[in-house]
């Protein structure tokens, strides 16, 4: 066992890869800052998978030796029995984000998180590892539920075979989720290896470098248990509030007669993006701010079986307009990017749905106001109803936690992704043709 390394170590003289690795490592060691550790942080350079396995196996035996009161219910602390989480960390900003997100999970933490830093191009010991275990109080706080974080830095050729390293470190008979923060290397063999190990792949389409390519790849991934997209999860309140308009039978008849949908979402401010990530900001700006807006539009279109008809305005400066074929009417779909500093890039700002009705046009409006929504409807000749509802901006931890609860394929999401690919391709094709 070695002392905790690296803090304050000078990177000068190292290669760029080595400096990157050091920076990542420094960030990841923040797991060791946990106040409620069960056992001292264990770390070892040039170690083996067997040594990591041995340490993990001994962890809870050691924890039980502290004279704690053992009851029929067991020790006052016990390891969570929820799931394994495999996380990849390619660079320092993502290391910051991953650490912050996992720490933010609190009692919703996976039983064991395995954080992988892969450096196939670096020489040196092929495996460094550190293991920490920490606990959080649950319910009435007289008991604690505990978790483990395993950080593995893999170098050289073994970094191209991560599945073999990770497999023996998973807790048996628990579901395994693979979280790939950032822009996933869809064409990379490592991506396929790890995705194949998991029961569910978690990613964030807002992070995709190429949204259309990403959606197309997601549509063709044949996973046992599907995909959780954090951008989709962010739409949860928008979808709930939109569906609520049409839960009332008297408004439901407007659904087939929707003829205009306008979606506005946040783009970086032209004054300079105040939301740009600070050094320790775990939420960097998003690569594809269009993701949420196009997913929302595709969700409605797919649920109502609208078909793409023609491109009215190709994708330009984050905005586009399509003409869709609805059941009884043509539908004008407009997605408009609005520069703003008020919310994170990509968040929806407003949604306006319009329908034809027997007594004139009906309008259904949701506007974001901070962490609340202002909701209005004007239909049946009734005066517009105005109310406020909760619309929190969930943290990445909250989003990640929500993906851990659901377990099955999300057919509604999969339908929306397929539609998003079609709409985006149409908007792009027109753009290219134009």
């Amino acid at each position: 066992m070695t002392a905790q390394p690296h803090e304050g170590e000078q990177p000068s003289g190292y290669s760029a890869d080595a400096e990157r690795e050091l920076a990542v490592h420094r960030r990841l060691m923040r797991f060791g800052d946990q106040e409620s550790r069960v056992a001292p942080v264990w770390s070892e350079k040039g170690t083996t998978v067997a040594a990591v396995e041995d340490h993990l196996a001994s962890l809870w035996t050691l924890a039980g030796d502290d004279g704690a009161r053992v009851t029929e219910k067991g020790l006052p602390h016990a390891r969570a029995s929820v799931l394994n989480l495999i996380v990849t960390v390619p660079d320092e900003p993502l290391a910051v984000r991953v650490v912050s997100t996992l720490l933010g999970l609190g009692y919703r933490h996976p039983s064991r998180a395995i954080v992988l830093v892969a450096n196939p191009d670096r020489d040196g010991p092929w495996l460094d590892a550190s293991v920490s275990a920490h606990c959080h109080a649950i319910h009435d706080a007289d008991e604690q539920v505990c978790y483990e974080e395993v950080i593995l830095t893999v170098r050289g050729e073994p970094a191209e075979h991560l599945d073999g390293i990770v497999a023996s470190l998973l807790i048996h008979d628990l579901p395994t989720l693979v979280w790939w923060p950032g822009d996933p290397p869809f064409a990379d063999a490592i991506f396929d290896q790890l995705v194949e190990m998991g029961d569910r792949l978690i990613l964030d389409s807002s992070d995709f470098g190429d949204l259309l390519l990403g959606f197309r790849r997601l549509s063709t991934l044949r996973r046992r248990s599907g995909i959780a997209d954090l951008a989709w999860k962010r739409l949860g309140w928008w979808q709930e509030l939109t569906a609520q308009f049409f839960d009332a039978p008297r408004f439901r008849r407007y659904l087939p007669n929707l003829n205009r949908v306008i979606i506005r979402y946040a783009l970086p401010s032209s004054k300079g993006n105040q939301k740009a990530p600070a050094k320790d900001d775990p939420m960097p700006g998003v690569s594809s701010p269009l993701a949420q807006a196009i997913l929302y539009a595709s969700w409605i279109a797919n649920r109502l079986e609208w078909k793409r008809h023609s491109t009215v305005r190709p994708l330009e400066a984050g905005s586009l307009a399509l003409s869709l074929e609805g059941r009884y009417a043509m539908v004008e779909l407009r997605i408009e990017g609005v520069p703003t500093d008020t919310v994170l890039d990509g968040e929806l700002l407003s949604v306006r749905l319009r329908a034809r009705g027997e007594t004139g046009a009906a309008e259904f409006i949701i506007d974001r106001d901070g962490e609340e929504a202002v909701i209005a409807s004007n239909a049946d000749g009734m005066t517009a109803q105005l109310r406020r509802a909760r619309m929190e901006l969930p943290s990445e931890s909250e989003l990640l936690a929500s993906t851990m609860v659901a377990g099955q394929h999300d057919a509604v999401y999969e339908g929306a992704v397929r539609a998003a690919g079609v709409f985006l391709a149409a908007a792009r094709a027109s753009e290219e043709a134009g």
Partner: protein
Amino acid sequence: MTTTSQPTADLSGDGVAKTIANPLREGLRAGRMPEPCTMVICGATGDLTERKLGPALYNLLLGGFLPPEFTVVGFARREMTDDQFRDHLRQGVDRYSRNRPIKESIWDSFAQGIVYHRGDFDDAKAWESLRSALDRIDRDRGTAGNRLFYLAVPPTLYPEIVRQLGDAGLAPSGEDRPDQRKGWSRVIVEKPFGFDLTSARRLNQELRHVFAEEQIYRIDHYLGKETVQNLAVFRFGNGLFEPIWNRRYIDSVQITVAETVGVEGRGEFYDQTGALRDIIQNHALQLLAMFAMEPPVEFRAQDLRDEKLKVLRAVHEMSTDDVAANVVRGQYVSGWVEGVKMPSYRDEPEIAPDSDTETYVALRLEIGSWRWAGVPFYVRTGKALSTRATEVAVQFKSPPLALFNRAGVPQIEPNILAIRIQPDEGILIRFGAKVPGQGMQIRSVNMDFRYGFSFAVDSPDAYETLLLDAMVGDASLFTRDDEVERAWAILDPVLKAWEAGAGGPVHFYGAGSWGPPAADELLARDGRSWRKP
């Protein structure tokens, strides 16, 4: 409890056909969204509204489970303005909601749909005026004639309120309404459902005189708890347990509802009620029925309640001699509970100094069914006990051959499966394992599933689940009239024996203990002992 998304068929059977499903609802978190409706709380200024109903409604709203048109009408005798009633509800949310602090603007928006209606429950004009107010709300807020009446009042007021609801034309649903306007009416009734079999029958008749049984939702909040619902999933969602869920493998069953608290300011009520009526008649017998029932044909209200009723019908009714032999009642005397000195029950406020009311009761019940014949069900509840715990524990039969019972090797403890309802919701299986080392030593070990360790989500409060169920018309977790009456029929001989002084004495037990020694003897006679959960 229904797992379907927006219902397309009539679940409730209360005569109101549901409309076609909302295609946008599929896959969303709030898979069940009630139709727009008004909830009328009769007795709205009381403790239940402040502690439970207000917080539950606010939490449902916050979770996005209430339709935008949802409206609350408080109805009570006290003079109060709309704003004062809103403040009353708000104070309850501030103090008792699991989501605090309150979100001001969300509350303000919700408060627009909260109004107060003053009136005496026996004043027909007050009900006429309430009906006009509800019609106005239907027009202004689009609540479509759907009304849920919650009787948050002492049971003595139920008959009058129900009669007035009928006279005011507020009870019928849909086509049964005089003006044939659409919409449903439902009524939620709080326990106790009667005081004995006779009064329960009378109450049911009074309710059914005005409402159809499908419109009546008798709330037993225990059934809204996640673990109680999980009892059904545990049994019928797994292939592992149901084959051994019978007399061939199960030796006995213990149902415990233990409280550490005393009467907590409810002295007058409790002294007239006692543990048998307060806990056994409803919570404990419902747990027994959920535990012992046969698989329902479908997981629907009608089928579930049919199966629970069959179990209750199969429970043997006791003779007076049986009561003396199979029932132990107790009353706590001064003692220490969780480090606090507790006075004797008879020294509590509002308690008669010579009260014989039982604060503890233990029963040995038998279910005369093919599945359970010969398996004793030990049921106990008590106040001022050592630990707060509600559980159903199964003791399995020992293996047919005592292979390891050689000289010097202690008897292997029987296998236990304990389903913990509260606190520490979860399931524990206890079995023997070899102690590592030379020789053959066997010790019992636990396999322990706990909700908190396996599900990283908060459970909703039971009232949230049940209110939402009533709004969507799912009566699965509510008790039906025949269940209630059968539960009273099981216990009526006990009450009568006690009244006649023939059911055995009241045994005293120290607060902070596990009940009177006589309760231990009840099991010791069968060669068994109580668990200490």
